């Protein structure tokens, strides 16, 4: 298995290196004429107003959290799914209980309007 990971590591390094090399080559080939108007932040053609880091909604964090919970749930379910063909019915029922508890959590989130965009 170490050979596989070595290949993946080399592949990752090369796939990081190729676009970087292309960008560096393009940076060498392209002109460089910075002036204040060009480098200014883009805001639909008008001057920037206010601070650049905006405060944003709590809703993003709630989405991230629900995603985290379901991601961890899926990670628990993957070994079960791999062993599925060797499991008896009670093991399947256990996993179904697992999923149903999490569906209950999703239903709670739905009722509390945590899934709305606004």
């Amino acid at each position, binding site marked *: 298995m170490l050979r596989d990971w070595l290949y993946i590591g080399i592949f990752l390094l090369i796939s990081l290196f190729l676009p970087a090399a292309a960008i560096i080559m393009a940076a060498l080939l392209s002109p460089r004429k910075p002036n204040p108007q060009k480098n200014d932040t883009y805001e639909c053609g008008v001057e920037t107003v206010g601070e650049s880091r905006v405060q944003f909604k709590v809703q993003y964090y709630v989405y991230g959290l629900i995603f985290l919970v379901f991601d961890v749930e899926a990670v628990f379910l993957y*070994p079960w799914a791999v062993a599925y063909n060797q499991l008896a019915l009670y093991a399947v029922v*256990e996993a179904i209980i697992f999923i149903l508890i999490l569906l209950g*959590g999703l239903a709670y*989130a739905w009722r509390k309007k945590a899934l709305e965009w606004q």
Partner: protein
Amino acid sequence: MTPMQITFILIAAVTLVSAVMAVTARRMMHAALWLIATLMGVAMLFATLQASFFAVVQVMVYVGAIAILILFAIMLTRRSTLESDQASLGSGWIINALAAVGVFAALVTAVWAWPAAETVLTELPKDAEQLGLLGQIIADPNGFAVPFEVSSVLLVAVLVGAIYLAVERKPQRGGRQ
């Protein structure tokens, strides 16, 4: 120095340096990015131990979910827009560093006394990692079936708690946008 040792030293160096930078970075966003580098380093360490499932799950859950959650949380805090001019080490950092070194020494002594720490890293065949066995143990009532179900209850508790904290208070604050 075998190539495995060189690889391990490189990966460990990357992880440790990223961890130190994550703690001492000036801007919170940079600290989060260094934390992501640390988590990737840990995933690479799992890969050198040939625990493929754990390496992949580390990237999927930690880097793909938790790191993004941390980035969202950083953007939620107003202080992230301020850059602290002084290095953010804090005044008592020597004591903290000594405590960290002490914990490290204790862990190394404990691991060294473990007989299985003497095994040499060999290349395992492809089917050495049996996820099916893990799945069977998870579903086995004599195995870990009860912790399996309890973990789902724990996850739902996390969900409920976070939603209560995040959503319930919004009307009281007059609608933060």
